[in-house]
C-alpha cells in the first residue's frame, strides 16, 4: 500500500518510517491511537468514579424508585456517550459468528455455579470479617413489587450496560495498547474496583476475568451479557427465597 508524505508529497510505501525525499518522520498512526486510547481509558474511569460518588450521595439523600431510575439513566447515558467514540467497533461486537455450543453451554452452567458460590461465600466472609451481611435485594424490599424492580435493576440493566461499558468500550480501548491477556486482566481489575467494595472485589475480579475471556475468545458481548444476567438473577433469586423464608418464619 502506498501513501504520500505530508511534507513534500512524495510517494511512500507503508513500511517507510521516514520520507526518503525530505527526511520527515511519518507520523506513527499507532502512537497517536495509543495516546488517544490511554486518554480515553483515564477519562472513562474518572467519569465512572465521579458518577459513583454522585450516586453514593444521591442514595444517601433518598432511596426511592425515582432515585434508582435517575441513577440508572445517568449510568446508561454515560455508557452510551463513551461508546459513541468507538461506535463502529462496538456495534460489531453484537454478533453471533464465533459462538459455538461449547460457549453456550459454559455460559449457562458457569453463572449458576458462580451465583451459588458467591451468595454463600460472600455471606460467610461478610459475617466473618464484618459480622454483618448485605445483599442485592435488601435495597428493594421496601418497594411495592420489589422482586420485579430487583430483576430490572439487578438482573437486566447492569448486564446490558456494564458489559457494554467494560467488555465493550474499555476492552476495545485497552487492547489498542496491550496484549489480549493483559487487556482481560486490566478490564477485570477496573471492573472490580468500580464496585467500591473490598469483599465484592474478591469475586468480581475472577468473574471479570471469565467475562473478559469470553469477550476475547468469541469476540462478542452476547455471551458476557448472558453470563452476567444469569449470575445476577441467580443471586437475586436465592436472596429472595431466603427473604421469603424469613418473612414466613
Amino acid at each position, binding site marked *: 500500500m502506498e501513501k504520500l508524505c505530508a511534507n513534500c508529497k512524495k510517494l511512500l510505501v507503508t513500511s517507510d518510517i521516514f520520507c526518503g525525499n525530505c527526511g520527515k518522520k511519518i507520523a*506513527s498512526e499507532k502512537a497517536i491511537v495509543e495516546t488517544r486510547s490511554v486518554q480515553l481509558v483515564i477519562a472513562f474511569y474518572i467519569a465512572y468514579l465521579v458518577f459513583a460518588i454522585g450516586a453514593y450521595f444521591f442514595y444517601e439523600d433518598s432511596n426511592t424508585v425515582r432515585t434508582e431510575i435517575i441513577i440508572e439513566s445517568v449510568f446508561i447515558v454515560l455508557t452510551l456517550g463513551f461508546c459513541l467514540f468507538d461506535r463502529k467497533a462496538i456495534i460489531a461486537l453484537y454478533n453471533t459468528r464465533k459462538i459455538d455450543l461449547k460457549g453456550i453451554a459454559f455460559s449457562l452452567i458457569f453463572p449458576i455455579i458462580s451465583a451459588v458460590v458467591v451468595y454463600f461465600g460472600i455471606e460467610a466472609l461478610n459475617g466473618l470479617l464484618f459480622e454483618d451481611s448485605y445483599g442485592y435485594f435488601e435495597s428493594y424490599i421496601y418497594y411495592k413489587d420489589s422482586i420485579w424492580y430487583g430483576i430490572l435493576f439487578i438482573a437486566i440493566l447492569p448486564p446490558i450496560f456494564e458489559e457494554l461499558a467494560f467488555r465493550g468500550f474499555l476492552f476495545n480501548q485497552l487492547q489498542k495498547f496491550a496484549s489480549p491477556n493483559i487487556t482481560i486482566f486490566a478490564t477485570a*481489575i477496573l471492573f472490580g474496583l468500580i464496585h467500591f467494595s473490598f469483599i465484592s472485589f474478591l469475586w468480581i475480579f475472577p468473574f471479570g476475568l471469565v467475562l473478559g475471556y469470553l469477550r476475547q475468545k468469541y469476540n462478542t458481548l452476547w455471551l458476557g451479557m448472558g453470563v452476567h444476567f444469569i449470575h445476577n438473577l441467580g443471586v437475586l433469586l436465592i436472596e429472595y427465597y431466603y427473604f421469603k423464608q424469613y418473612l414466613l418464619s
Partner: protein
Amino acid sequence: MEEIVQKPSNCSNCKSKMRADNIFCTTCGFPEMGTEHQRSSFHAAHVLNIRRSNEAIKYIKSGRNSLFVIAALSFLFGLINFFSFQDTAILVATGILSIIYIALAFWSQKKPLMAFLLATLIFLTNMVTNALADSSTFYKGIILKGVIIFYLCKGIYSALELRKLQKA
C-alpha cells in the same frame, strides 16, 4: 561531461537497504545523500532522542519508587488501625492493596504503561473509597497524595513517550 555518481545501496547509519532515488534512509531518517548540515542535524536529533529516552526512563523509575512508597504507607496505615482499633478487615484490605502496589511496581519494569495506568486508577479509587467512608481522609496527606499522583501520571506519560521513541 556527464558525472556519474554512485549511490550507496545500504544506509551507513543503520545498514538498511536504500532506494536509488532517496536522499534519506526510510528506516532511520539518516541523510545518506544529504548535505553536511543535514547530517549534523540528524546526529543532534539522535542525541536529543537518547536524552528524551533517558529522561523517560528516569521518570518511570520515580513512578516505580512512588509505588513502593504507596505500598509501605498503605500497610503502615493498616497496622496502625489494627493495633489501635483491632481492625482486622482494614489490615487484610491494606495488606492486599500493598501487595498489589508492589506487584505493579515490579511489573512496571516490563509493562510500565499498563502498570502505571492501573496503579493510578487503583490509587484514585482507594482515595475516593476512603473519602466516602470518612470525608476527612480526603484532605489528610493531600500534598503527598498530589506528589504520588504526579509521579504516577508522569510515569504513564513517560511510558507512552518511550514506546513512541522505541518505535522510531
